C-alpha cells in the first residue's frame, strides 16, 4: 500500500462490465513529505474521493477486494482509504 494524491479522473464509457459504474481516478504515489514518486496510475475509486485529497492505495491482486460489487473485477489498483494525518518523527523523515 502506498500514500497517493488524487490528481484527476478517467472517463471510460466502454469498459469491462465487471468494473461496474465506479469512478476511476488518477492517483500519484507520494511519500510522507508529499514528494511524488513513480508514474501516476489509474485506480478504482469506490469511495468517491475528490481531486487534491491524500489517500492510500492497494495494488496487485488484493486491490480487487476493494470493488464493492463483484468478487472478481479487473482491477489492479484501488483507493482503499483517506488519510486524515501522517505522524513521522523528525529523525525518520526522508
Amino acid at each position, binding site marked *: 500500500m*502506498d500514500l497517493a494524491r488524487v490528481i484527476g479522473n478517467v472517463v471510460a464509457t466502454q469498459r469491462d462490465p465487471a468494473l461496474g459504474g465506479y469512478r476511476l481516478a488518477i492517483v500519484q504515489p507520494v511519500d510522507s513529505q508529499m514528494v511524488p514518486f513513480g508514474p501516476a496510475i489509474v485506480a478504482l475509486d469506490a469511495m468517491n474521493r475528490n481531486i487534491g485529497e491524500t489517500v*492510500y492505495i*492497494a495494488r496487485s491482486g*488484493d486491490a480487487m477486494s*476493494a470493488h464493492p460489487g463483484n468478487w472478481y473485477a479487473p482491477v489492479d489498483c484501488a483507493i482503499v482509504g483517506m488519510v*486524515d494525518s*501522517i505522524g513521522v518523527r523528525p529523525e*525518520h523523515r526522508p
Partner: protein
Amino acid sequence: MKIARVVGTIISTDKLPAFNSRKLMLVQPLNPDGSKAGRETMAIDYVGAGPGDIVMMGAAPGLAELVFQLDRAPINELIMGIIDTVTIGDKATIGNSVR
C-alpha cells in the same frame, strides 16, 4: 519478507471496512546493512510494532484475508514480526537490540 523500519503512523477515519480497528503504519524498507531500500510504503501492523522499530514486512495476494480471517481485504503489506537482530556473517547489523 522485507526488513523495514516503522517511521510513522497514519490516521484514517474514512476507509474500507477491512481496515477498521487496524494499525496503519508508515514503513521504510531497509537493506540488511541498514541503508534505505526504496520508497516509504504502508503496512498493517498486528504484532504490536511502534515507530522506530525494525520489523519484517511482507505481502502476498490473499495473505491478509487468511491472517485476519476476512472474506475480502484489500491489504497488501503486513508487519508480521519485530526483529531483534539481523546478522550478516558474524556482524550484527540492525535490529531493535543492536545499538
